[in-house]
């Protein structure tokens, strides 16, 4: 059963089209990952789904309600955790949660009880009376997620939940996402961390240049990736003649990526290292390391989006800063 249905959704800013007639659906109870490089249209899409941006055209149905005309009704059943913590600095963690609950009409006793429960669940019960500004980045992130689920939404939109926080907090947040999902909350997750998507998502949609170019089950994407065998050779110097000779000698492989000090090859058949080592030796090229790569969602992401891994890593680092 679809809980989110998006049809031909577009968003234009003047001459620039940020989102171009995208269509996808999210199943009730799943974790749906929305992946794409910076500027691909992820946040604009989330903003349109949650009511912070008006679509230029298209349709949004959320829990059988019109997500454009009846957005205020929809907002009652959705929770939103933005990419940056946006609670009130001067207010305590507890007061922030109680205030957020009141925006959704929870009775005083209920909101106070929920706030205390969430502080405990997020291991913040000892710091609930501290002002939000005194929290660490990881604590802020956790409290922002707690604020997003205080009214027990049916759908939770999580924008980059683990970006820029410490490893332990990120691990806790991943655990919380799994727990929430196990309790029946549908989760719409955008992330730069392919590993997070791989671990958490049931299905993934890829958006590039404002277009959704693929939506598939994570398992299917992984199977697709695992059909490919990839080996990376770290060498002294890679030249075009060397690549040509390699392809001539091993016609069953293709060169996936090459840089001045490495060559990455892929093959649908299992790759035996020794013939390649002998080939490089014959060519007078010293191989310092040969690595068989475990096919990952990152490879799938790179194949689908055409974004180089190095660029992706730079984006991640930029986002962290």
């Amino acid at each position: 059963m679809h809980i989110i249905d998006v049809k031909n959704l577009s968003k234009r800013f003047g001459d620039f089209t940020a989102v171009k007639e995208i269509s996808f659906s999210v199943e009730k109870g799943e974790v749906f990952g929305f992946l794409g490089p910076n500027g691909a249209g992820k946040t604009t899409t989330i903003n349109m789904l949650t009511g912070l941006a008006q679509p230029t055209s298209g349709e949004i149905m959320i829990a059988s309600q019109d997500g454009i005309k009846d957005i205020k009704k929809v907002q009652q059943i959705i929770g939103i955790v933005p990419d940056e913590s946006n609670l009130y600095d001067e207010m305590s963690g507890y007061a922030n949660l109680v205030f957020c609950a009141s925006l959704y009409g929870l009775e005083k006793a209920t909101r106070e009880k929920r706030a205390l429960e969430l502080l405990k669940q997020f291991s913040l019960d000892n710091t609930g009376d501290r002002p939000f500004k005194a929290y660490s980045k990881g604590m802020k992130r956790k409290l922002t997620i707690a604020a997003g689920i205080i009214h027990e939404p049916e759908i939770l939109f999580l924008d980059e939940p683990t970006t820029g926080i410490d490893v332990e907090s990120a691990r806790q947040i991943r655990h919380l996402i799994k727990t929430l999902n196990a309790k029946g909350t549908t989760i719409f997750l955008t992330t730069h961390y392919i590993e997070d998507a791989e671990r958490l998502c049931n299905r993934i949609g890829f958006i590039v240049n404002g277009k959704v170019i693929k939506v598939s089950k994570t398992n299917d994407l992984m199977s697709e990736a695992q059909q490919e065998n990839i080996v990376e050779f770290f060498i002294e110097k890679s030249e075009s003649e060397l690549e040509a000779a390699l392809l001539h000698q091993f016609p069953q492989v293709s060169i996936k990526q090459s840089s001045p000090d490495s060559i990455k090859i892929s093959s649908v058949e299992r790759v035996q290292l020794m013939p390649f080592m002998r080939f490089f030796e014959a060519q007078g090229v010293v191989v310092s390391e040969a690595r068989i790569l475990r096919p990952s969602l990152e490879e799938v992401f790179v194949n689908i989006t055409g974004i180089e891994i190095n660029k992706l890593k730079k984006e991640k680092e930029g986002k962290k800063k």
Partner: protein
Amino acid sequence: MRQRMAFWSILVKDMQNYYLKPPNISWGIIFPISWTLMFFMRSSTPVDIRDILPGVMALSVLFGTTSMLAVTITFERKSRSFERLLLAPISLNLLMLAKTTGAIVFGIVNAFVPVLFASFLVDLSGIHWVTMIVGVFLIAVTSTFLGLFIAVSVREVFEAQTFSNFFRFPMMFLCGLFIPIESLPVFVRPISYVLPLTYGADLLKFSINQNGHIQLWISLIVLLAYSVGLFLISTHNIKKKWIY
């Protein structure tokens, strides 16, 4: 019920976070005292406190409301906590009324600080209190919505302050509080009659000293029209700029 609860929570949160902070309370006390002292110091003849009371009250409201609202909304917008309110299941009109009610109350309380001080110094009998309260309320509402209009028009907190002064200072000198409109150059007078504070100040002058020059109903209609107009323009701008 749900909407009322959200309205009340936003109002209480703003009162606690902004308006009831010690610097703002002290500002509300110091501002009217400073203005009153300024009149005493610059005047070579004895100053009748009742004469300057409408001006001090009107300016207390104007400066109190525009400063607070323009800054708090710009600040919340900058820290993105305002987004949280926009994403809540409450209508935009109700949300903006909740955000502005705190400033209106702050403005009204500010206006009565000089009245309280004056009550210890001069005889306040003969004041038309109903007109005064209506006048203060309408000045507070109009000034607050002017603050809202300013907040929606700028991005930075310092811009909010600068843009506020663009409206406040001409109003201060041209609304007839300190310089009678009849004494202003002929070409400036039409500007005076475009400014909402002219009508608010006239209501206060009428209520305190019975020397207003504009018909009461005209002042009421103009102030109401300004309030509704500024609120509608501001919410329209919010939809256009912030729910882009």
